[in-house]
């Protein structure tokens, strides 16, 4: 628990779990905003979402209470029930390298923003090359080759064989 990022991860679960209650409330509020058509009054478009919302509010409240009680010292309860000698899956998956997670998320967002302006090949190949090289710098040549072959071959496979257009972006001028 010495790593500050690991500490940040430790508060992720309580915050997230407690935030589920306002999420359920928000869902219910949004469900109330749905306009009921004047006809077909038996079951309108609101009824079912309101039911789900009500259940969700109850379940999220139970989770939040459990979480808060665990936080004030009822710990040790959280190793849930074991059904018929079957060990349940690990409750929490560990993450050792939060920097990497942040980097991947940032790179992915960049890819999505630039996907149409830059075009498929020009957005995907630096994405694959960059990420792969961050994790395996010594293989940069292999990474570069794979990134280029991958993006170019899939571009042609989709646009010519499958007939699914992909954004050409900066290559627009070259291919026209």
């Amino acid at each position, binding site marked *: 628990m010495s790593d500050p990022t690991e500490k940040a991860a430790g508060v*992720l679960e309580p915050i997230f779990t407690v935030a589920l209650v306002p999420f359920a409330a928000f869902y219910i509020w*949004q469900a109330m905003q749905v306009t009921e058509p004047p006809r077909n009054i038996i079951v309108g478009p609101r009824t079912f979402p309101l039911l789900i919302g009500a259940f969700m509010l109850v379940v999220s409240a139970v989770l939040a209470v459990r979480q808060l009680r665990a936080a004030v010292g009822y710990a040790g309860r959280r190793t849930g029930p074991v059904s018929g000698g079957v060990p349940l*899956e690990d409750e929490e998956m560990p993450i050792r390298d939060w920097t990497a997670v942040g980097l991947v998320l940032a790179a992915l967002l960049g890819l999505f923003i630039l996907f149409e302006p830059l075009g498929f090949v020009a957005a995907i190949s630096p994405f694959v090359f960059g990420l792969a090289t961050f994790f395996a710098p010594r293989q940069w040549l292999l990474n570069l080759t794979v990134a280029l072959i991958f993006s170019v071959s899939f571009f042609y496979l989709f646009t010519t064989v499958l007939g699914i257009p992909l954004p050409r972006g900066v290559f627009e001028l070259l291919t026209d």
Partner: protein
Amino acid sequence: MEGVSGVLAGFSIALQPFYLFLALVGAAVGTAIGVLPGIGPSLAISLLLPFTYKLVDPVGAFILFGGIYYGASYGGSTTSILINTPGESSSIVTALEGHKMARKGRAGAALATAAIGSFVAGTIATFLMMILAQPLAEFALKFGPPEYFAVMVLSLCTVSAIGGGHPVKAAFSTLFGLALGTVGMENTSGQLRFTFGEASLFDGVSVVVAAIGLFAISEVLFGLGNLRGAKAAKVIETGSLWMTRDDWRRSTAPWLRGSAIGFIIGALPGAGATIATFMSYAMEKKLSKHPDEFGKGAIEGVAGPEAANNASAGGSLVPLLSLGIPGSATAAVMMAAIQGYGINTGPLLLQKHPELVWGLIASLYIGNVMLLVLNLPLVGLWVKLLKIPESLLYPMILAFSTLGVYSLGRNVFDLYLLYGLGIIGFILRRCGFPLAPIMLGLVLGPLIETEFRRALIGSRGDWGVFVSTPLAASLLGCSLLMMAAPLAGRLWRSWQRYRLNRRKLHTV
């Protein structure tokens, strides 16, 4: 038996060269993704959808997906045994004994009992599917809206109660999936719900985008989030694949027991392969004549769970084919894929599209033989796949996901939706919420709402309709029991603790 004549017609479809080819492709792709970390069958099927919609008909797509589904559970055992890294959560148990066997130089025997067990289980499961599909579908045709509603509610409660993970957390996942399913245009009144004015959401949250976002993005984040500083896995040589006479004797009964457990658990919606493998392992350990060998490489601990794993894939297809209710996340994606072809799933599927159901079943028999050949003599080929560096594999999965989602509707909004769902999936998994119930909720939600409304309209708004027939009432009663069971267990435990504390107080 109608099943036999049906499946004979199915073989006349499945044996056509193109479908044979698709079954082989499915088996090979399935084995590959089973071996590779980070890609499961539901993800592989989602990523292949752009290809299948363009290139093959629904029957071909079903055959391909069936092959992938079966193949993935074959391939998962290889990495568990040889490098102690399960490719899927359903192969965790196999690693317990399988890797120990491999370290003793018995990798070949472990691989053989896993592959032959998978073959036995797959064949048994396919046979049971063939026998059960028609009667179940005919039974389901008698369902009115209240019964159909009740069956679906029961399946969601099963997912929450025994689908793995903490029951309350699983219940939240299920409800979250249902909530995602209400996004978009409501199918009777045409009212828009939860779209926030975003036109791309009018059609709702696509099952494929959800599957890729929840499974692929989160899996990659976990993979890359633990990659740096990880020790490179050592691949153990396979050696001779022969099983000794003693191996055969000790494997046969676990194969059969595992097949039975796997099929039953698999057919229950949501209680997927992972639970089935754990149950089979626990059972073999209890029944074994050599309990001391468990944990040190007992062949029963590989044979049983591997059979259970494969049989559960077959089991989860039974409710899909006969009722239109998917039994696992993979079956949910298959169902969405078939709906994407404009085919209605449900009890009428078998009547309206017999070629689809029987073609798939026949093809699964064939695919199983192919998989046995692909996985035993050719096992060395698949091990080579492990040479692909993870630092390249994971970014390529992200690139594939982008490609798959974008090509669905050529819409950048879908990519942002993918991003958001990926982050949600990652946080949910990090906090111990299971993801498969979200998929089942998302797929079943709109169907449940439709039946819910039909039932209430039929009864002119009387809510008593849901308990008006014995079947609907008992199904809903079972659902209540499922939900109440964890709660009752808790109350019982706190009551015991309370008594224990009081006794302590008295004795002090």
